[in-house]
């Protein structure tokens, strides 16, 4: 279960070393850029750029395949469906009743697919190269209240634990003859009560204990909390940030000020 959320692969690349705040901003700007760009060629350049970064991040092949599986399927779906639902433009290549497949529609479909591809994969740059710890640290440093950051961190920390817990509870109930995959909707829902109740009880108990543990470590004692590990922007981070901003601002200027479509 942890695999779902913790995509971090340890390595020593410039992306791994980059300040996580810059990475978060990068992902946001690149996502906005994907919306800003309207021409297929520029979107494909952006997509290629994202893949280049993923390659440089030395993301493990298996994780990349897993991540891209869904995205690719979705992109293919868009390419196929778009022309079916968008009959405008000419020349018409084929028609069947009200459905007209037109050439411009196909290109629009491909363009949208490319845009979705960019949006879906750009996040992996962040996820593959940033540990959960640094991610939360960055969010807090960027203004997220420490309480929220701690809540987020604790949730992430306990995800694998609760995953294992639910598996154990399922085992325990199966050993009492509970068959989760049998029965109609009503019976199955009743069966899940046998999983849900022990899970919730365990979760609440853990939460109680955690609350005592937090208080015992003087949580909330002072408002001027210090931090052992701090995030410091370095020159290289500044440069990267500058490049990113430029990469975003230029097309934005082109589009909105000079009315040049990119």
């Amino acid at each position, binding site marked *: 279960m942890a695999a779902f959320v913790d995509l971090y692969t340890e390595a020593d690349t410039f992306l791994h070393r980059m300040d996580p705040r810059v990475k978060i901003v990068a992902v946001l700007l690149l996502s906005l850029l994907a919306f800003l760009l309207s021409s297929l060629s520029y979107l494909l350049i952006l997509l290629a750029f994202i893949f280049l970064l993923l390659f440089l991040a030395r993301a493990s092949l298996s994780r990349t395949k897993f991540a891209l599986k869904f995205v690719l399927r979705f992109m293919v779906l868009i390419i196929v469906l778009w022309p079916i639902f968008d009959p405008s433009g000419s020349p018409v290549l084929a028609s069947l009743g009200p459905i007209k497949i037109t050439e411009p529609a196909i290109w629009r479909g491909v363009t949208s697919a490319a845009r979705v591809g960019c949006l879906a994969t750009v996040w992996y740059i962040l996820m593959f190269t940033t540990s959960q710890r640094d991610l939360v640290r960055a969010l807090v440093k960027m203004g997220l209240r420490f309480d929220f950051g701690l809540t987020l*961190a604790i949730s992430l920390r306990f995800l694998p634990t609760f995953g294992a817990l639910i598996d154990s509870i399922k085992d325990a109930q199966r050993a009492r003859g509970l068959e989760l995959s049998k029965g109609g909707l009503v019976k199955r829902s009743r069966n899940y009560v046998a999983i849900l109740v022990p899970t919730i009880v365990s979760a609440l108990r853990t939460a109680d204990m955690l609350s005592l543990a937090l208080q015992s470590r*003087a949580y909330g004692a002072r408002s001027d909390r210090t931090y052992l590990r*701090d995030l410091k922007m370095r020159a290289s981070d500044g440069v990267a940030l500058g490049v990113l901003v430029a990469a975003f601002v230029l097309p934005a200027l082109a589009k909105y000020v000079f009315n040049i479509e990119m």
Partner: protein
Amino acid sequence: MQALHLRDARFRYKGSTGWAIDGVSLDVEKGEFVTILGPNGSGKSTICMMSNGLVPHALPGDLEGTAEVFGLDVRDHPVAELATKVGIVFQEPESQLFCMSVEEEVAFGPENLAVPRDEIGERVEWALELVGMKGYNDRSPFSLSGGQKQRVAIAAALSMRPEMLVLDEPAYALDPIGRIELYSVLKDLKEKHGMTVLLAERDGEEAAAFSDRLVLMKGGRIIKSGPPRLMLRDPEDLRSIGVTPPQVADVAHLLNARLMRSKFSFLNVDEAEKAIVGEIMAHKAGGGK
């Protein structure tokens, strides 16, 4: 000033009809290692939670009598304040470690106290070394064994530089290796660092050997208290409150009864071995008198 000073203390959890502790008078002096022995429901956990104010602030109820920690009345001082003097370790390793790495966990306490960054780093290293977990800084708690988790929990309490460490059945969920590691850390804390420790246990086997004092509790009351040798002289005392005495204490007691002397007193296997070998040699030398 004592680390813990209870005088006729009574506490009843909110919504409960019985008194969890019912007229307890207990003093823990600085530098003492006190072990409370008692069955489930004897009140030993309540006393532990009172040491840093969780009782009555986080676990509300009626508190009567005197309850002072390093001179501070627990009723009048918040947990955050008492936590700077008393560190506590609970029985469940899993639910007292909540950070994503060992280092963060141990740093959490001092961070909350706004300790300067350099000093936090030093404290983390010092605490991890003390519990034998040096170098584990970047490990995630999920990947540790039960014994390792409990040692990290101890380190996380120690990094706050408390004046007293309280442990509520810390070996509860541990396997034999984990138990050995844990008690070895506690022994070091006592013998090498003179730490004031309050330990609550259900089973007398391990801690009896190096405790300064054993306090026997049942039904919210202290039945007896004194140095281990005295408390273990008649293992029936422990059995009568529902605590298993150390097996070597039974051996000593039985030997004394058979030989009609009361010279034997064993706190651990080493002592027992030494004394018995001595006795056997003496017997051989004396030609079987």
